[in-house]
């Protein structure tokens, strides 16, 4: 489990060292790396994927996966964004979050009541939600007219992300709910025999992931002031990649929110560093792919 044992090396140490080394190398070679502008840019870049990665961490720890998360983000942004652009800011934000929760409940319902494997249920809802989002918006971009620009200003996206990570860290590490999430991921049957209701826990996890997709939608709209249904297709894989780089086992039962935070950091710094050193943008995808495999191998070696 996720308990910190002082006499053991924390499993996140290797990737943390990797992140620090990468930052140090960039800070030494590129003076612009530590400039306020660049830090702000990185914080903004990390926000959307970072926020949904927290929900994804909990889902993967239960042994599930959520392929629909980017679609949920898009639908909730468009539903709420329409109200926000008309000046109904409070209602718009509420609608965004509620749409996220609703989509999360749909996923959770299919998985718990429908007893579908998560990868199939969320592949199905990926199709349904993404096309609903595009149909709803008619393929048009919505503009928030600066009504929620506050959410995207300066370091605010980064601060929101850190807050979400803090909440996720506390929930997963220090509450009963978090314990139960690890328990059903480790062995669902024995968790059930121990008196935990896996259906309730999974429902809670998928609904929270939906809520976080709503939060990410608000932040993304705040940053860009506009949103279009197919703006964020790579967020789903980005989030899964961050979780996996962070050492969470795709089999469930093992992993941590702090690991995911480092994972988000690594992929953000990789992207940023590639731009700073003038690496051809076409290479970045290949580099991130390699980073995922290296992280997985390192995790494998550490366990031996």
């Amino acid at each position, binding site marked *: 489990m996720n308990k910190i044992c002082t006499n053991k090396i924390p499993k996140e140490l290797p990737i943390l060292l990797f992140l620090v080394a990468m930052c140090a190398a960039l800070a030494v070679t590129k003076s612009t790396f530590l400039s306020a502008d660049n830090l702000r840019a990185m914080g903004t870049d990390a926000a959307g994927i970072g926020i949904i990665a927290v929900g994804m961490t909990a889902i993967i720890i239960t042994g599930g996966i959520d392929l629909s998360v980017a679609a949920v983000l898009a639908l909730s942004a468009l539903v709420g964004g329409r109200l926000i652009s008309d000046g109904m800011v409070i209602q718009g934000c509420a609608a965004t979050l509620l749409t996220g929760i609703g989509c999360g409940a749909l996923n959770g319902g299919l998985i718990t009541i429908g007893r579908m494997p998560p990868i199939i249920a969320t*592949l*199905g*809802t990926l*199709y*349904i939600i993404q096309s609903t989002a*595009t149909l709803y918006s008619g393929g048009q971009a919505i503009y928030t007219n600066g009504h929620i620009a506050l959410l995207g200003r300066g370091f605010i996206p980064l601060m929101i992300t850190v807050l979400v990570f803090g909440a996720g860290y506390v929930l997963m590490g220090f509450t009963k709910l978090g314990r139960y999430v690890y328990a059903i991921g480790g062995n669902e049957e024995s968790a059930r025999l121990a008196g935990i209701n896996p259906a309730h826990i999974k429902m809670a996890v998928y609904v929270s992931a939906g809520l976080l997709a709503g939060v990410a939608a608000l932040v993304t709209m705040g940053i860009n002031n506009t949103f279009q249904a197919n703006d964020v297709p790579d967020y789903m*894989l980005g989030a899964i990649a961050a979780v996996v780089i962070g050492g969470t086992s795709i089999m469930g039962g093992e992993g941590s929110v702090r690991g995911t935070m480092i994972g988000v950091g690594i992929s953000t710094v990789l992207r940023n560093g590639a731009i700073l050193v003038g690496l051809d943008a076409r290479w970045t995808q*290949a580099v991130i792919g390699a980073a995922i495999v290296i992280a997985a*191998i390192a995790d494998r070696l550490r366990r031996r």
Partner: protein
Amino acid sequence: MRRLIAIKESPVLVLCVGLFICFAIYVPNFLDGPGILDDVKQYASYAILAVGMTLIIGSAGIDISVGSVLGFSTVLFGCAMARGMGLMSACLAALIAGSVWGMLNGFFIARLKLQPIVVTLSSMAAARGMAYVIAGQGVSSIPLPAEAAGRVNLTYGSYSPLILALVVAVGGWLVLVKTPLGRYILAVGSNEEAARFSGIDVAKTKLWIYSITGFLAGLAGIVTAGMMNTSITDAGLGYEFEAITAVLIGGTSISGGEATVVGSILGVVAVSMLNRGLGLMGINDLELWRMLCLGVILISSVLLDQLRKRAMSKSAKAQAV
């Protein structure tokens, strides 16, 4: 009825027949309209990918890199042709490239025992990235040279993608049903540990199926390039999900141990009928309605499959009593 329930292809068969009847009645030109062959041909590469995916999902694995590997080999094929390589050697290069990606996947999964979704997620990113790299800065499509395109068209005349897909399907069916490898795949899929104890070389089995799937993705890349007369760096984007969808609609179980190539092909047929039918209905936003229907069909066919299994275990119990 009981016998119908026992067939794992029955949900997808019902779906195909239902779609066929609905579209044949309500959509004019569905059966005899222009371009039916072109429409069907579009699905040759999906069918080829779906056959490989059936083997992988049957072994309880998954491969989400096939679309990117298709893209990589398409681009490699295009580059080779553009530099004046012969058709055969360009094909060979594309097939080898696909197989090498598949072998890499298989090596990491079978020998280093990493999770299939993690490995193929990263090769999905890497293969697409490498496709951009070999295509060159800012190049998104490589047209085949005119005389080469003519030769490709001859070789890939009107029916040949379909024939190729059919050959691959029959081959996949034979492998799964008639060869030891097929037995091993299902054994590994239903219980890896038990398979190992009964003397099956699990790592070798996995290495084989991921290599085969990579090879097939390379083949699908050539077919895609040949049909469009050009190699596009974004070719195959999202195909992995469509292939997985077709396989799951077809009745192959995501938890492994149960696989059917016939079902997967029927799944591809269902998806292609859906696309043609919706296309002829003249709907705006075709792509979106298509995705919406795909999602609903995927979820309902899996739910239907679970009902089928429940009914089967009930009738088995009744018989036992």
